[in-house]
Structure formats: structure tokens, C-alpha cells
């Protein structure tokens, strides 16, 4: 019984949150990696683009709530996803047309692209703050929990409760759906294959009659979907605050590089690697161990490897270690 209690504690406080957080990071990391593979630059506006899409979801959620439109026990935000995605894609294409395409045609070095994306980051941040302001916003409605701790305790008779927030379940399910569709698209359809060819060898792809404009367009469309959905899921699970989204860029980059930048599957797993590392290293194992060892050996301290203040630092340290030992990432990067 104690053993099961220990497992429940661990699942409740580490595995479920890490799975949800990892899914959110994974969507962002695939977004980064896709832009890197096809358009060949590190997009420093990642966090703010995700924030931009989420902003529309937040505003539309408020609007739908005011006219009484909802999904019952599901959050209203799910209803806004298609509209937010459309706005996001329009914004990305606009940016691409006025900013990035010039440098793409000139074949500028990646560093210049990165600097340009910093400019885009500034502009996007300004637009977001001017439209919605910098404050913290919650836009979750509907049923908050699928499984409450007390219900679980009654059901199983265990000491420890297991909670499953609806946002966590939604995050994991939606991520799996989006990511499977994306991998199917990249690997099985003709357009996806042409994208992979373009990413692999641009000149050869052009020679075989692949239209670069189309490839770029499709890339931004997929990127828009990933960015918006990732952002909305994060906002539902925690809350929406532009500054936090900007900071999220850093673990997302870490996830993309750890998985091997340019490799979507690597980025997908990288998201979970980063999330699990962050949560497992900063979790206090006191209660978990208390169930496993006899009472006399119960630990006094929190049994925490690092304090939660260092949450971000953990993921960055992992990145540094990966860069040192295996600069190409866990999976070899630079192909989709």
C-alpha cells in the first residue's frame, strides 16, 4: 500500500505536470526547429509569436463569454483556436513578406536573420502590450478538474490524492493530435516531402521543381498552428502574461537544441526531456521517500536536489551539457 501511495505522490506532483508542461514546450520547440530547418534561422521572436496568437484567443474568449457562447464543461478558449490560428498565420505571413523575405532572397547569413528576428520580437512585444497590456490574465472556464484529490481518495481508499486538471488532459490530448497530424503531413504527403527536400538541400530541391514560395508559405502555416496552440495550452494551464511568454522562449530553445535543432521529432522529445528534468530535479522527495522507507529512517530535510528557484537554470545547464558532449543534440539535427 505504501508503495502505491509513493507512486501516486510521484505521479501527482511530477509526472502529470511534467507531461503537460513538456507538451507545451514540445509544440514551441517544433515551431523553432521547423523555422530553423526550412527558413534557416534561430527565431528569437518565438515566445512573442506564441504570445501574439494567445492574445487573440484571450480576447475572443472574453467576447464569446460576453455573448454567452461556450462549450459547456470544456474551456471556451478551444472554440477560439481556429480564429486565433488564422490571425497568427496572417501576422506571420505579413512579417515574412515585409521583413524576412528580403533577407531570404539576398541569402543573408543566419546571424543577420537572428538579428532581424530580434527586431520582429520588439515590434511584436509592442503590439501585444499596446493591444492587451502587460498584466496577468486567466481565461480558463468550464470544468477545472477531471479528477479531484478527494474523489480519488474515496475511490481507491489511498492516503494520497491524485488530481488531474482538465487543462492538463486537454494539453496532452491536443498536443498528441496536432503532432501526429504534423508528422503524418511531413512524412506521407507530397507537400511534406517537398518541405523535407527543401530543408535538406535547397538547390537540389529548386532544381527538381519545388516552388520555394509554396514551401515557405506552408512552413509558416504549420508554424502558426503550432505557435498558437502551444501558447493557448500554456495560457490555459497557467495564465497569460506577455513577459512570461517571452521568457518561455529560453526553455523552448533549450528543448529544440537538446533534441537536435532542425529535427521535429527530436524537438518533440526534447520538450519532455527539459520538462521532466526541470520538475524532477527541483521536486522535494520527502513525502515520496517517507512512504518507501521505515518510519525510523524518514528524512528530515526536503530531499530536494536543487531549490525550485533554479527551475530555469536546470534546463539551461542540460543544454550546456548537451552542447559540450553532443553539439548536434540527442537526435542528429538539421533534417526534417
Amino acid at each position, binding site marked *: 500500500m505504501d508503495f502505491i501511495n509513493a507512486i501516486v505522490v510521484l505521479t501527482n506532483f511530477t509526472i502529470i505536470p511534467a507531461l503537460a508542461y513538456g507538451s507545451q514546450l514540445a509544440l514551441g520547440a517544433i515551431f523553432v526547429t521547423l523555422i530553423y530547418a526550412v527558413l534557416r534561422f534561430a527565431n528569437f521572436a518565438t515566445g512573442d509569436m506564441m504570445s501574439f496568437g494567445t492574445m487573440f484567443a484571450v480576447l475572443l474568449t472574453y467576447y464569446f463569454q460576453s455573448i454567452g457562447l461556450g462549450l459547456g464543461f470544456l474551456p471556451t478558449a478551444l472554440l477560439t483556436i481556429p480564429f486565433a490560428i488564422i490571425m497568427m498565420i496572417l501576422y506571420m505571413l505579413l512579417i515574412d513578406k515585409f521583413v524576412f523575405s528580403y533577407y531570404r532572397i539576398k541569402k543573408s547569413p543566419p546571424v543577420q536573420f537572428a538579428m532581424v528576428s530580434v527586431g520582429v520580437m520588439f515590434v511584436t512585444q509592442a503590439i501585444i502590450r499596446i493591444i492587451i497590456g502587460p498584466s496577468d490574465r486567466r481565461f480558463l472556464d468550464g470544468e477545472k478538474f477531471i479528477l479531484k484529490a478527494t474523489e480519488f481518495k474515496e475511490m481507491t481508499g489511498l492516503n494520497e490524492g491524485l488530481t488531474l486538471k482538465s487543462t492538463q488532459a486537454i494539453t496532452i490530448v491536443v498536443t498528441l493530435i496536432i503532432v501526429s497530424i504534423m508528422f503524418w503531413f511531413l512524412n506521407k504527403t507530397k507537400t511534406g516531402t517537398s518541405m523535407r527536400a527543401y530543408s535538406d538541400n535547397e538547390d537540389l530541391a529548386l532544381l527538381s521543381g519545388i516552388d520555394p514560395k509554396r514551401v515557405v508559405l506552408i512552413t509558416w502555416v504549420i508554424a502558426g498552428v503550432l505557435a498558437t496552440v502551444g501558447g493557448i495550452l500554456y495560457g490555459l494551464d497557467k495564465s497569460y502574461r506577455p513577459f512570461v511568454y517571452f521568457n518561455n522562449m529560453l526553455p523552448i530553445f533549450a528543448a529544440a537544441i537538446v533534441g537536435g535543432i532542425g529535427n521535429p521529432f527530436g524537438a518533440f522529445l526534447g520538450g519532455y526531456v527539459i520538462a521532466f528534468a526541470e520538475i524532477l530535479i527541483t521536486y522535494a522527495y520527502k513525502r515520496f521517500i517517507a512512504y518507501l522507507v521505515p518510519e525510523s529512517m524518514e528524512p528530515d530535510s526536503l530531499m530536494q536536489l536543487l531549490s525550485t528557484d533554479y527551475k530555469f537554470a536546470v534546463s*539551461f545547464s542540460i543544454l550546456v551539457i548537451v552542447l559540450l558532449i553532443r553539439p548536434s543534440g540527442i537526435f542528429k539535427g538539421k533534417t526534417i
Partner: protein
Amino acid sequence: MRKYSNIIAAYSIMLVLILLVGIFQSWSIALTILNYCLISAVMTIGANIQWGYAGLINFGIMGYTALGGLAVVLVSVDPVQQAWQAGGLNILICFWIIVVIVVLIRYLLKYFNKSKYRTYGIAFIIIGGILLLRLTASPGIEAIEAVDPAKTGFLGGMGLPVLFSWIGGAFLAGGLAFIVGKIALGLRADYLAIATLLIAEIVVSIIKHEEWLARGVKNVIGLKRPAPYEIDLQTSQWFINLVEKFHSKKLSMINSITERQDALSQFVIDASSVYVKLCFTGLFLSVVIVLLIVTQKALYSPWGRKMRAIRDNEEAASAMGKNIVKEHLFIFILGSAIVGIAGAMMVTNDGLFTPGSYRPMRYTFVIWVMVIVGGTGNNFGAILGGFVVWFLWVEAAPMALFLINFFTSHLPETNLVRVHLIESAPYFRFLVIGIGLLTIMRYRPKGILPEKIEIK
């Protein structure tokens, strides 16, 4: 003379702008802006050495700035004797443990061939060392943080004059740059950018959360300054006399004696803050001029030529027998050390150390915009970039407010759009900076004052 005409014109425009702020807003604000411009200029000189001379992209400016600030605390604050007695020994032991770990690992790496056992050995040393560190450190840290936590709760510094801390900042930042350079300089440009950004984030989070070191997010206030305090000035006779002489015309117009006294004391208060800021301006200006002369000399020296050769074509330079790895590491340390000086200068200017305020947006990306906008590879350009961008960063909000009021003046005061726009005026600075960067990158990719190298 003609070849400098661009530079002179650009700097005069900048000077006029600052003077305009002085005339229309207040001299105190103008001097604050000027001081921050000078600090930004030092940072851009550092970033320009790395990016403009050697083509190294360093997005970790924030980390070095924060270390420079930390140096001010560690050098100038008086030591907290009680804290040293409580836990100083543990901290010193920890320091030696770290040294032993590093030496042991270096020994293993040097004298043993690469094998599975060596890797296990290194892993064992690291894990064992960390456990040992935690065991020794945690009682010490707890004891230190318990010493009068509202005021101290940290080890304090060395109690030296604050100007020494600027050199200390350079050394701390250079030391970090040495480690980062060893780890990350082999990476490709955009990887290097991300890696440095994340390492800076780690450094800042350590400074934020290790409260025994510099009080972390509880901030250190009331740091020493190299200039007199306003209060002292306001009570010293020579200063009052000076102000009286300066304003004698205005004062003589006032007839009543009490009114004259009131006016005089108001002038003294204003003048004291201006005087203190002028002192800082003088100090900062001398740092900027010294750095400018040194970097300008370096740029035209054989060393500068070598750096440009490496930047423009690494393979060719390598074929000519230049040690690229070594040169990159050296210039990375040099640039970071200068950024460290700037960080120390900034904390000295503010008189307080607030680790919570170090954000990559402000201390990394804005600095980079300064370098790009001003002109990469050109020191005059980099400094100008620091001035222009900082000026815009500060003055964008008032200008935006003015424009919003101007264009919405036909709307009623309570109009929702107008109220919303006025509330969001501070965020127009992001818009101005972003659009400025994008425009410059597109139409003048080498910056306002582009790099011009003449062979002498």
C-alpha cells in the same frame, strides 16, 4: 576634416537633442539620460569589440552586466563581521573544495587516456564534490542568512573605495567569459547566441537566489559613491555661495528676504542633484574616452588587422598561422570585461544593486540594437548607437504620449480608445526600437556610421 564630418554631425545632433531635453524637461533628467547614454556606450564598446572586430555573437551581455554589479557589492560594501564569524569558514572551505574538484578533473583529463573509467571517475568526482559542497555549505549559508536578515544576511564585501569595483567588475566578467568561451566558442554563430543567452540567464538566477552572496532579490541599497551626497552639498557653505553667485541675477529681482531665502534653498536643492550627476558624467566620460582611445588604437594596430582577417575569413587566417581559437577566446574575454565595467558603473550610478531587474530584454537585446544601429566595427558608431538608442528608449514614451494627445485631441477625454492608448504609451518604446532596428538592418545594414578601414 571631411572624413570626420559624418561623425561630428551625428554627435552634434545627439548633443542638441540632450540639450533640448534639458531646456524643455529639466537639466536633471537630461543629465540622467546622458549618464545612462555613457554607460550604454561602454557596453556597446564591449559588444562591438566582440561582434564588430571578431564577429562573435554574444547574447549574454546581461550576465556580464550583472556580474559587474555584483562586483560593486563585493568590493565596496563593508564586510559583515558577524556573518563571517557565523558561516565564513564554511564558505571558504566550499571555495577550496571547488578548486580541488577542478584541479582533480584537469589532472584526470591530462594524465589519463580517454576511456570509460575516466568518464566514470570524472562523474564520480563531480557528484561527490557537489554532495560535499552541499553538506558544508548549507549550515554556513543558513547561519549567514540568519544574521540580521532585514539589513544584512550576507557576507558583505571588502570595504574598498567604490572605484576599485569597476576593475573588480572587469575581472569577474572576464573570468566568466573565460569559462563560457572555453565551453561555447566552438559553436556556430546562432548556437553561440542561444548558449550565451542561456548561460547569462543561469548566472543571473544564481545571483538572484544565493542570498548569502549579495542578498539576492532582497537588493543591496545605499552603496558607496564616488561623488558627494546631495545632503552634504546642501549644507556646505561653499556650495551655497556658488549657487548664489550663479543665480545672483534672479535672486536680486526678489525683494523680500524670506522669499529670497526660499528661492535660494530651492536653487540649492536643484543644483545639488545636478552637481552630483555632473560628477558622475565626468567620471563616465573619462572612462568612455579612455576606452575609445585604446580601442581605436587597437583597431589600427597589427592586432586589429589580425582580428579583422580572422573575422572576414577564418580559414585564410588560420592558414596564415593565426591561432583562431586563442584569439577568439581573448577577444571574448576582453569585450565581456568591458561590459563588466559598464555593469559596475551602472550600479554605482544607481547606488543600489537589484538582481531582479536584470532582464535579457533590457540588458542584452537593447544593447545589441545599439551596436547594430550605431555601426558594427566602428567605435564611434557603437558609442553613437548607445546614445541614440538609449535616448529613444527613454524619450519614446513622452513622445508617444505627445503624439497620442495630438492625434486624439478631437476625441472626448473619456473616449475608450484614447484612454487605452494613453495607458499604453510606455510600450511604444518597444515599437520605436523594433522598427528602428528593422529599418536600419534593411536600408543601412552597416549602421549609421559604418565601418571604414583605411590602411595607414
